[in-house]
């Protein structure tokens, strides 16, 4: 398994709101959290919301301070998540395997010109 950083942005919290205020982070950089664990508490003009974590992973960066106003679509948090090393086949067929040294039977003679 390899790790990959994935950044999540502040989602549209509905009602056409364009921003939200970070009230309190429920995680710190370095924490390893599960999917759906409480991640951050944010407030819009109309309600307060706890956003659950969309992924299991290790928190690498929090992009906003508490009490900071974050526009919808701006980065909120970056996770390091485990990703599959082995590629998954599609609905049909096999993932082609790469030969380290392609086999050949034919040798070439360089041109004389």
């Amino acid at each position, binding site marked *: 398994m390899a790790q990959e950083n994935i950044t*999540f942005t502040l989602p549209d919290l509905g009602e056409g709101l364009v921003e939200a205020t970070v009230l309190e982070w429920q995680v710190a950089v370095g924490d390893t959290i599960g999917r759906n664990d409480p991640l951050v508490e944010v407030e819009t003009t109309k309600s307060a919301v706890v956003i659950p974590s*969309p992924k299991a992973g290790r928190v690498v960066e929090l992009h906003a301070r508490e009490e900071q106003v974050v526009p919808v679509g701006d980065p909120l948090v970056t996770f390091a998540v485990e990703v599959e090393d082995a590629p998954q086949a599609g609905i049909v067929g096999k993932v082609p395997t790469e030969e380290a040294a392609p086999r050949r039977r034919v040798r*070439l003679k360089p041109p004389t010109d």
Partner: protein
Amino acid sequence: MTELIERAAPATEGETVELSMQQAINRALRVLLTEDPEVLVFGEDVGTLGGVFRVTDGLQKEFGEQRVFDTPLAESAIMGMAVGLAMNGWRPVPELQFDGFAYPAIDQIVNQVARMNYRTRGAAPMPITLRLPSFGGIQAPEHHGESLEALFAHTPGLKVVAPSDPSEAYSLLLQSVRSDDPVVYMEPKARYWDRRPVRLSEPTDPIGASRIVRSGRHGTLIAWGAMVHKCLQVAELAAEDGVELEVLDLRWLKPIDAAGLAASVSRTKRAVVVHEAPLTAGLGAEVATLITESCFRDLAAPVQRVTGFDVPYPAGPLEPQYLPTIDRVLLAVQRTLEY
């Protein structure tokens, strides 16, 4: 329930990230859906499932069911719907799940999509990009390994493109979807899992431009899609023997870069064109003719073609014997050297 959405397109132009071709196409679709509210992505299993190769993974969640949606299983209707959507101001990016299932939609593609702009004297442009997982190499069932580029290239009004690696896939898709002409974007399935650093950059070359992937002076290998990779392997092996081969990724199969072909072959004097599709009336014939027309006096040997055979695409165990092999390409190179 409030859910976080994975971040869309990279903020910085030119950022380099390691991606498979699947992911690179996914990134490009995100950029397109973000930048242009008229872009619609639809087809069989592209929504909830995220595509049978995960190319549209997460797009429906991010952009909603209005803009990324599953259709019933009917290829002709998918392409026919694209025509109507385009006439109502949308920029459709339909997917037909596999090359072989473009055939049921050929009527709409050839009789409708390709010529609506012409028929209406420019009043009804068709800014449609058909994403078509294409070509062979993954031991798939019947109708999942076809190469239709000659058919599309032969159809007036269609542009045709086949990327060869993740970076190309990214920028060529941006270019295709932004074009106001219909484009058939052929994704080489065998390279979907090819993972390498991708420069997420805006396209710089115009539509129709080829590119030199490797320079050499003794001959030019011309290919597109997954065969570019095979030609790079051949060039590497040829170098062991002291033969320096140039590899030209044609990219656009219509319009074809005649000037790019001439520039390379007039220098190297030898050309071998490699494709997966059957030989007869394949695109290799067009490429060979263009070279002959522009470089006749420069050529040290007739243009060679290494292609699939004139047989239906075979089942798994015979696939490696159908597709151009390294030895067949080397032998073709040898023929040009010895002519």
